[in-house]
């Protein structure tokens, strides 16, 4: 079968530390994969290597049939991968709308002439995208749709997460990488957020999601499949129930060797 995302023997080192150790990981279209493992097991590093923030020291990554191992962050985004960050990286002084539009970069006309001179056409494009952003954020929190032009600096964590996810979704990517969406949120908030994400996914069936998460309840509930990392190596793979009972996994989490 063809994979949407496929990593073969992916390796990344930081000085002496091996963050990714010859990792094989394949993602089938339209599935939701949970990427789990103890802290420092290389989950986030995997995202950073895939999205071109870090280069790989070995192995390869293909996305949608194209090799993106050496691709820049830009290229990866344009290929249809977008992500959220473990520590929210919104532009705080900018408005909700602006932050979402940053995620929409590839669908906005970036021409100097268009932006500076053809204000009429620009306005039309603006209104279309404004509407799109509203529709999207309303799925998460109708309140926010009324505050589109307020800076995000004043908003609570949950709202920032929502905006960050909207920023990742607005460009209708093929693959969404969620890096610990639950970080800094209560259990209920997380649950709510996930339901919203699934709702979006129902609107856009061919969205594939890789999610890094510590909330095992959440993983169990939404993932089709899990991949467990430890010291940058894959130690287990399969449905959550199955990997949850795996001895190696339990040892990894308990830190027994």
């Amino acid at each position, binding site marked *: 079968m063809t994979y949407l995302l496929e990593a073969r023997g992916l390796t990344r080192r*930081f000085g002496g530390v091996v963050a990714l150790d010859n990792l094989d990981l394949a993602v089938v279209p339209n599935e939701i994969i949970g990427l789990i493992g103890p802290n420092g097991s290389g989950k*986030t590093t995997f995202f*950073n290597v895939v999205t071109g*923030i870090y280069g790989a020291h070995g192995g390869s990554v293909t996305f949608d049939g194209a090799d993106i191992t050496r691709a820049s962050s830009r290229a990866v985004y344009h290929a249809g991968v977008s992500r959220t*960050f*473990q*520590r929210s990286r919104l532009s705080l002084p900018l408005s909700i709308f602006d932050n979402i539009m940053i995620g929409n970069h590839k669908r906005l006309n970036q021409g100097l002439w268009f932006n500076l001179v053809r204000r009429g056409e620009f306005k039309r494009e603006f209104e279309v995208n404004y509407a799109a952003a509203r529709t999207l954020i309303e799925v998460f929190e109708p309140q926010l749709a009324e505050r589109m032009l307020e800076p995000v600096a004043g908003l609570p964590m949950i709202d920032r997460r929502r905006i960050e996810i909207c920023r990742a979704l607005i460009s209708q990517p093929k693959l969404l990488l969620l890096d610990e969406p639950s970080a800094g949120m209560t259990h209920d908030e997380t649950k709510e957020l996930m339901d919203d994400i699934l709702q979006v996914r129902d609107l856009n069936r061919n969205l594939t999601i890789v999610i890094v998460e510590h909330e095992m309840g959440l993983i169990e509930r939404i993932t089709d499949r899990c991949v467990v990392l430890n010291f940058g190596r894959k130690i287990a793979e399969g449905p959550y129930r199955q990997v949850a009972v795996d001895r190696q996994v339990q040892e990894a989490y308990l830190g027994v060797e």
Partner: protein
Amino acid sequence: MDVGLLSQYIMNGLMLGMMYTLVAVGFTLFFGVLDIIKFSHGDVLTVGAFTGLATYIGLRSVGVSSTPLLLLAVLVVAILAMAALGMLIARYLVLPLRSAPALNTLLITLMLGTVLREMVRLFYPQGANPKPFPALLPTDSINLGQFNLRLDNAIMLATGVAIIVGLRLLLNRTKLGLAIRAVAQDEETARTMGINFTAIVLITFAIGSALAAIGGVMNGLYYNEINFGMGLLLGVIGFSAAIIGGLGSIYGAILGGFLFAALQTIGAVALPFASAYKDVFAFTVVIALMAWRPTGLIQEKISERV
């Protein structure tokens, strides 16, 4: 080129390099502990030099005439005064701005520099004019062919080296040095280690400013003239030196200081065009260096958490 002549040029270059280094080390110390650039540093040097001169004139007027005594007094007063000034600046201008964007700190300290400079110009008697600075060191000299070695220059050079070595020892061998390096590494851990952050910052600023004072006096002794504007260019050059060396690294500052002096000297003598172009040459090389090594010659570790 004639050997004597060559050694003369080298001597000139070394003297310049020493003064630049003294300034650059200050910049790099401040950056180390606070990650900020205190741009008024060059003008602290000016104030130091003028404090020294004022001390000299004052003591002469009360009849002190022994040169060594005068020299000692000039140095001590200048150093103490600048150390105090440095602490005040840190306490009331730099520390309160920790949360503000780096650009604000940069601009405020630049403006502070203007304030100091203007104060000297306006409130020091006839401060707008260049002031003769007494030669307090023995000026005997030996002529070796084209090379004229002056005792005072030799002494200054030796002093400079001693100071820098001393600073290294202070930073590496003493508890204080350990504390400073801890703060430079990571403020939080330093605090948890029970280090009084504010105190360390103040002390660091005191040390850096004291170095500036020494640099100022040295400048006066070398050129036998000081003026209210001398700090501006020295400050910028010191900053450049610290940067091309690599901010936060003492060795970087030293390397940068002497490198810049070398560039100027080479620009003045070894290049086809007129010696007046030496600064153009030096700064061109600086810019080229930045393009080649964007974080300085002695690289700062940058690890960005994503």
